């Protein structure tokens, strides 16, 4: 035991030493070390955010293109041929292969590159060290590498758009056999390989990032920052990181097996296949395409929460700050996030109800899926009760946070429909599913992200974003998103399939042609308004109103105790000590009491 003792005695002090190492950094910085290969978590956060914004524009543009096809299946747009060339848009009509590539890349880009890397990459990097009271991440080098792996993944993914046979087009889930057989479609050739390579690099980036987030939250909390005093953002980002670290490797394994099926003649996912395009029966035998679906959705479902949890955490923080009230049910919030994180691993097969799964097994997954309604409902209840009789300040961040709650409720309710295997047999692969997950995961998380950007922009750049543009952005996006996705529920209930190029051949769906046009027009408007946000973002970086006070929102958390433009190391001098939780708003007659203030003698406990 002697070595044990000596080890422990020595380790207790390590992380103080570690802090001091970083403190000296920020004197000799060049352009390259400050803006490009930066190891400062705040700069890495900005890199993730801006890369995410670029990806969001690209991914959004894809959806505008395929909405043109869905809204106007019988019209041609010659300008598309001018821009995209005669292979993808011959005669101004989007060609089937290109349409499938568009929906595939829209999904991939938005789910992974925007709402995973862009969202948690940005806010985990920005907020974890600032809110737990650390000089930087545990390993700034790994943190930098995580961004650059993401960057290389982005380059490979972008490159796949320009190969002759086009990008991957088998859906964002890349189900074999389609994705495994290059002869099966154009998009299953080089584009699919580049897609897999980009995703593998992406998993590496997520792993490096996640390990850093976890160890920073566990090990580098400042003095007094007990786990139960952590802001809910940090709890949310912690669970997100754990989900990522434990679920992405399974996807990675699935991809490796898929690569072998593509190039090494194996039959992991392949069996009994006759390929129409080459008129050949393939020799592959004994594999299972369903196996891939299990591996994919074992990541795929936690991925939903990897996207949603950071938004939940930020929304909790922004709602309570702008309601000037303590968060309602702090421990219930933490507990329900924990429950969501556990359940996230136990529900994946509800994406596979129609794969011929044993109905008994299906019913188990129905039960586990519907259980998620409990923690979700607790969180909604707590958000609403936090708002209840609060002294609300409708900042843009606050509006988007309230919008998040709205979308989370309306999208969550339809989850109860599709979570039931019996109803799902009817709704599977229809526009109803599109409506459900876009509202609850896509739009809701985007609202969380916007809320975060508006709220923490002053911390990131020392300036405010323009409020008028922000309000226009909010209202048009809120109304537009509902106008886009609400009607899709009706289309889906009527059986209108997703992923189809053109449904006008079915008389039963002709009634929706006007509605489809309407959805397409609204989505173009909403996309244009997002460009307004992008303009506001970049304009405000350089020309926005300057932040004059250290704590513009009157917030309790530690990031507002740093200088207005914090350098590498965040705090000048000592890191502040924490004496209370983050939610003492409107307490004992005081508007807010920062975490750094010691608990007074006569103060009531929360």
């Amino acid at each position: 035991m002697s070595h044990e003792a000596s080890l422990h005695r020595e380790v207790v002090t390590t992380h103080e030493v570690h802090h001091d190492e970083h403190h000296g950094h920020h004197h000799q910085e060049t352009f390259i070390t400050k803006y490009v290969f930066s190891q400062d978590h705040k700069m890495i956060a900005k890199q993730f955010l801006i890369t995410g914004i670029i990806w969001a524009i690209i991914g959004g543009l894809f959806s505008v293109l395929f909405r043109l096809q869905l809204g106007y299946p019988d019209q041609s747009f010659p300008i598309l041929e001018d821009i995209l060339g005669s292979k993808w848009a011959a005669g101004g009509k989007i060609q089937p292969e290109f349409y499938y590539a568009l929906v595939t890349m829209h999904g991939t880009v938005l789910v992974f590159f925007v709402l995973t890397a862009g969202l948690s990459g940005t806010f985990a990097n920005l907020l974890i060290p600032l809110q737990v009271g650390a000089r930087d991440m545990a390993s700034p080098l790994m943190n930098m590498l995580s961004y650059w792996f993401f960057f290389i993944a982005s380059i490979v993914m972008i490159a796949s758009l320009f190969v002759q046979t086009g990008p991957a087009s088998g859906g964002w889930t890349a189900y074999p056999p389609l994705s495994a057989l290059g002869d099966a479609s154009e998009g299953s050739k080089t584009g699919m390989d580049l897609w897999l390579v980009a995703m593998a690099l992406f998993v590496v980036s997520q792993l490096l990032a996640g390990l850093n987030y976890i160890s920073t939250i566990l090990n580098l909390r400042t003095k007094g920052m007990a786990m139960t005093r952590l802001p809910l953002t940090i709890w949310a980002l912690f669970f997100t990181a754990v989900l990522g670290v434990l679920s992405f490797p399974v996807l990675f394994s699935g991809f490796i097996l898929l690569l072998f099926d593509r190039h090494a003649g194996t039959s992991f996912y392949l069996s009994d296949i006759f390929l129409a395009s080459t008129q050949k029966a393939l020799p592959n035998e004994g594999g299972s395409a369903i196996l891939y679906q299990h591996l994919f959705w074992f990541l795929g479902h936690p991925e939903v929460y990897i996207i949603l949890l950071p938004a939940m955490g930020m929304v909790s923080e922004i709602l309570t700050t702008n309601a000037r009230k303590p968060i309602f049910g702090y421990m219930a919030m933490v507990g329900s996030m924990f429950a969501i994180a556990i359940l996230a691993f136990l529900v994946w097969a509800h994406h596979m109800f129609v794969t011929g799964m044993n109905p008994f097994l299906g019913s188990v997954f129905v039960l586990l899926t519907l259980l998620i309604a409990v923690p979700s409902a607790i969180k909604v209840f707590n958000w609403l009760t936090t708002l209840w009789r609060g002294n609300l300040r409708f900042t843009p961040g606050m509006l988007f946070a309230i919008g998040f709650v709205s979308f989370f409720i309306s999208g969550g309710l339809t989850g109860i429909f599709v979570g039931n295997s019996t109803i799902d047999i009817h709704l599977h692969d229809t526009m109803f599913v599109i409506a459900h997950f876009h509202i609850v995961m896509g739009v809701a998380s985007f609202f969380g992200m916007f809320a975060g950007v508006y709220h923490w922009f002053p911390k990131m750049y020392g300036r405010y974003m323009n409020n008028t543009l922000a309000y226009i952005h909010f209202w048009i996006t809120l109304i537009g998103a509902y106008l886009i996705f609400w009607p899709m529920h009706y289309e889906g209930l009527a059986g209108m399939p997703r992923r189809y190029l053109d449904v006008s051949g079915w008389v039963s769906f002709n009634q929706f042609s006007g509605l489809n046009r309407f959805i397409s027009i609204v989505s173009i408007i909403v996309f244009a308004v997002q460009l307004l946000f992008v303009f506001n973002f970049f304009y405000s970086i350089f020309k926005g109103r300057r932040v004059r006070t250290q704590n513009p929102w009157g917030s309790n958390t530690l990031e507002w105790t740093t200088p207005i433009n914090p350098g590498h190391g965040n705090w000048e001098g000592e890191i502040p000590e924490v004496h209370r939780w983050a939610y003492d708003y409107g307490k004992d007659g005081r508007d807010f009491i920062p975490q750094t203030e010691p608990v007074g003698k006569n103060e009531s406990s929360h």
Partner: protein
Amino acid sequence: MSHAVPADQKWWSGGKSPFNVEYGKVMMWYFLMSDAFTFGAFLISYGTIRFASNGWPDPNEVFQSFPGLGSGLPLAFVSLMTFILIISSVTMVLAVQAGHAMDKKAVVRNLIWTIIGGIAFLSCQAWEWTHLYHEGAWWGSNPFTNMDGTKASTNFTNFFFTITGFHGFHVFSGVIINIIMLIMTLNNVFERKGHYLMIEKAGLYWHFVDLVWVFVFTCFYLI
């Protein structure tokens, strides 16, 4: 377990590591969990496919050769491989132990033994792969029949080469890490730091790779 710190110390209240380890070790443990899920996914995939197949080759028939001794020795060679790897784990423990005692010479000696063990294991694997390859086994081709004599699917060899290959890649990176540790030890990096924590983290990885082999060994050679 005795702690050198006061019993009433509040581990979770911030300002120190709640597990009394530095961040690198926390990262290593989480990385190992992550990697366990990678291997778990592989092995569960293997189990699923094998369970769904009508038959499967008999490992006693497939793995029965020993270099220099010919065939007819079921599982003898893989037992030697497993023995080598487990012994290399023992020498790794000794290296970590010596690191705690700040005994540089013993660290160097045991690290070298561990590296030799790792390289020996990889060499054995290379021999086994080559041997199987010459028998006609590779990704996408399986010369072995099922236990009941019927024709087998190629998934026996597909999974064998993929999973043992992935494990071998882990052993290879472990050897590289250990060589780096050895160079750092020889350059007195840890002496100057005053502790051999890095060796301990490399040791965690090495033991994990060994542990994974136990499962891979069980799944492919024993069952």
